[in-house]
């Protein structure tokens, strides 16, 4: 497919092509590289905003997990979500690609737009949505298949016609895993170490060239060395992707994110601003208490 043709160098451009044209009906605007200017369908979003939520509320049964979350997540940046356990940060992440739909008792109200299209509109197919949003989970979860098969899984199920060998090499290089596994691409992904598995999961997520990369505490199950590798990787990926990362590690958020959202108990978004401002001069006393370790 010509859209996937890549500039030989310049990683920035390499993964920016659009995918299967059949998916285009879901999101009118798909091309990341010039998404800012060609925004004919804009519904009043800010120039650089990729994800915009308006008064999102989530209930799990009777449990009110998220209360009136409104935030705008900018393009090609790392947005971190921090907060104590059970504050709803992962729940918000799962609202973006509608993974909450898979939970029977979950109920979502409010609107969340991805490049101007409300993902909770009736005409949005959640499966098609998820094909545009990559996700990396807390626990490394490669499939019990070979490393190669793990990376091309998304291409296969989405019916993307590409040079698999090329995509595998490209994705593994971008996930900083290529040098470690290039000689054993056909061994099981489960034979890798935890950190390698997580980078494999990142390679799998970016192989299909998604709009947004969601990461749900991607380093919390890893040792410090593997964690710092993942952190470096996240910063690099943010050059081409809009990364939204949930973490309960405040230092991690301070190190790698451009913007930080602080969720506190009760599923409230207490403060959302530039990371530097949040950590140096937060508006809210509660946020300051949380960041300085007085509670949470």
């Amino acid at each position, binding site marked *: 497919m010509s859209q996937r043709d890549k500039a030989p160098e310049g990683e920035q451009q390499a993964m920016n092509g659009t995918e299967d044209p059949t998916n285009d009906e879901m999101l009118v605007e798909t091309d990341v590289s010039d998404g800012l200017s060609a925004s004919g369908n804009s519904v009043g979003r800010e120039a650089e905003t990729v994800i915009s939520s308006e008064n999102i509320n989530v209930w799990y049964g009777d449990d009110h997990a998220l209360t009136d979350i409104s935030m705008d997540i900018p393009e090609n940046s790392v947005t971190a979500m921090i907060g104590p356990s059970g504050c709803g940060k992962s729940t918000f992440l799962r609202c973006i690609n509608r993974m909450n739909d898979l939970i029977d008792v979950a109920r979502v109200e409010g609107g969340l737009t991805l490049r101007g299209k409300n993902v909770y509109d009736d005409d949005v197919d959640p499966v098609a949505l998820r094909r545009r949003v990559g996700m990396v989970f807390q626990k490394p979860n490669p499939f*019990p298949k070979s490393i190669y098969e793990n990376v091309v899984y998304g291409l296969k199920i*989405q019916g993307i016609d590409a040079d698999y060998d090329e995509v595998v090499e490209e994705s593994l290089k971008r996930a900083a895993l290529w040098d470690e596994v290039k000689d054993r691409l056909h061994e099981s992904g489960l034979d890798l170490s935890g950190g390698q598995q997580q980078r494999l999961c990142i390679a799998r997520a970016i192989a299909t060239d998604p709009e947004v990369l969601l990461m749900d505490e991607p380093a919390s199950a890893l040792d410090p060395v593997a964690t710092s590798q993942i952190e470096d990787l996240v910063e690099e990926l943010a050059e081409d992707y809009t990364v939204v990362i949930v973490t309960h590690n405040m230092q991690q958020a301070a190190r790698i994110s451009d913007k930080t959202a602080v969720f506190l108990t009760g599923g409230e978004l207490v403060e959302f601003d530039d990371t530097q401002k949040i950590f140096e001069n937060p508006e809210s006393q509660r946020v300051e208490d949380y960041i300085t370790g007085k509670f949470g």
Partner: protein
Amino acid sequence: MATDTDSGYIDSFGQVSRTTGTVFRYLLLAATMFGIVTLAVLLVYVANDAIRPLTADLGWHLTFFLTLVVPTTVVGGYLARRNVPALKLGGMVVGMLAVFLMFSGGVAIVFVDIIPPLTGLSYVVGLLVPAALVVVLTKYEQQIPFTLRVAATGAAFILSLVGVPGYFHSIPEIVRQLPVVPADWMILTLVLGGVAAVVVGQYVARIRENTTAGLAAGASALLLTGLAAVVGPTLGVDANAAAVVTSVAFVPTLAYAGGAAVTREQERIGLLLAAAVVVGSLVGAFAVDALGFAGPQSWVDWQFLTSAHSGTAENAGLYPAIGGSILLMATVAALSFPLGVGAAVYLEEYAPDNAFSRFIDVNISNLAGVPSVVYGLLGLGVFVTYLGQPTGTVLIGGATLALLILPIVIISSREAIRAVPGDMRQASYGMGATRWQTVKNVVLPEAFPGILTGTILALGRAIGETAPLIMIGAPNVLFNLPTELTSKVSAMPLQVYAWSSLFASEDFYTKAVPAGVVVLLAVLLAMNSIAIVLRNKFESEN
């Protein structure tokens, strides 16, 4: 208590009584062992009646003790102390040889006596042609619409197997009408040796990570089968039997042992155990023959395994019943596996959590506990009375037994599917996979070993059932092998039951019945051992 609290020093902590706990513990041990020991005593008693080891000459026992028992014990004892994994490997090879030898007997019954080799070949060709077409179609999966692919696949199989009456023949008919047909042993070599070659070739290619080695192994497997069929008759072994036994038992065992010898350097010494058992048995057999010692006058002998029922216990045999059991199991597996796995996948992956699905849940558990005689009545009522089928055929018996084990297959398959980690499903959905893609690519491959294990154990239950077969009117005595799905069928437990009830004489009680029970149990244990090996293998991999 000798505790000096004033000074803060403790002389002694005292004792806490554990008498009740100890008594309780040994009561629990007794409860655990009661059933096992009782059954073991019974089995030893029956086996003694059937095999009668004490009727052998003392010299016979002594010979085998020296050639088989002593070397095996020495090697086994050495390995047990020095290298337990090697002992396990050796035991695995011996077990594999024993179980596969038994299965090769079953395969020989099916592919020589029940299905004539030429008919078998004709259907193999008739299936391979459309299967090749399906493989080609899969390559162009993306370009061809789904419905068209399904239609083309279906049409290919129907055209190939049925043909168009009046216009052109089906492929099996064409093969059967070929002017020149190869001899039976050639067909068996081609078909069974071919299957063995593919399996062995893939196995070797995988463990050696070398396609050439795999191809070489596959080719030698085929060659070895052909060689056995050619050399066999000169040694007094039937060519067909030689081809079957070689391809089903010897080739896989050799491939496994050879593969282990090459890839598992630490454990390959364990193959000595297998060598001790095989060489010891052969040397022992040769020695007792040369020295003229008589073996035990076992009731489980070649005559018993290869002849039909007779008026006298000495001449009675189990052959038609063994063949019937095999055909029944094939029918049961073909019916219950797709139905059971299909239901399990639906209930685990698709069914919403509502009152209806909970109702079905509870009732499947209930169905698993319904007595088998009730299923027999169901089979009689539905298939014979309502659908007007003849009584006691392979098809009716198989369908009834399939209904009997269906709940067990569903329950064990559901457990296997539930054991697939939820984060693998999440990963798949997160990649934008549909439910069907997730089930097909992630859930079923991961759950398959568990499903297979559960199904084999359920088949083990079906093979021992007597009551449903009596209810559907299976004949107590059958003198010929059933050769079609609509032939009357008997089964091993039914034959044993017939000997113990209809022919209840002292002779049958003491000779034919124990022999039949031993054969039935041997088959059952062989099946279960495969299920257990599969389960252990995949449990240790995860």
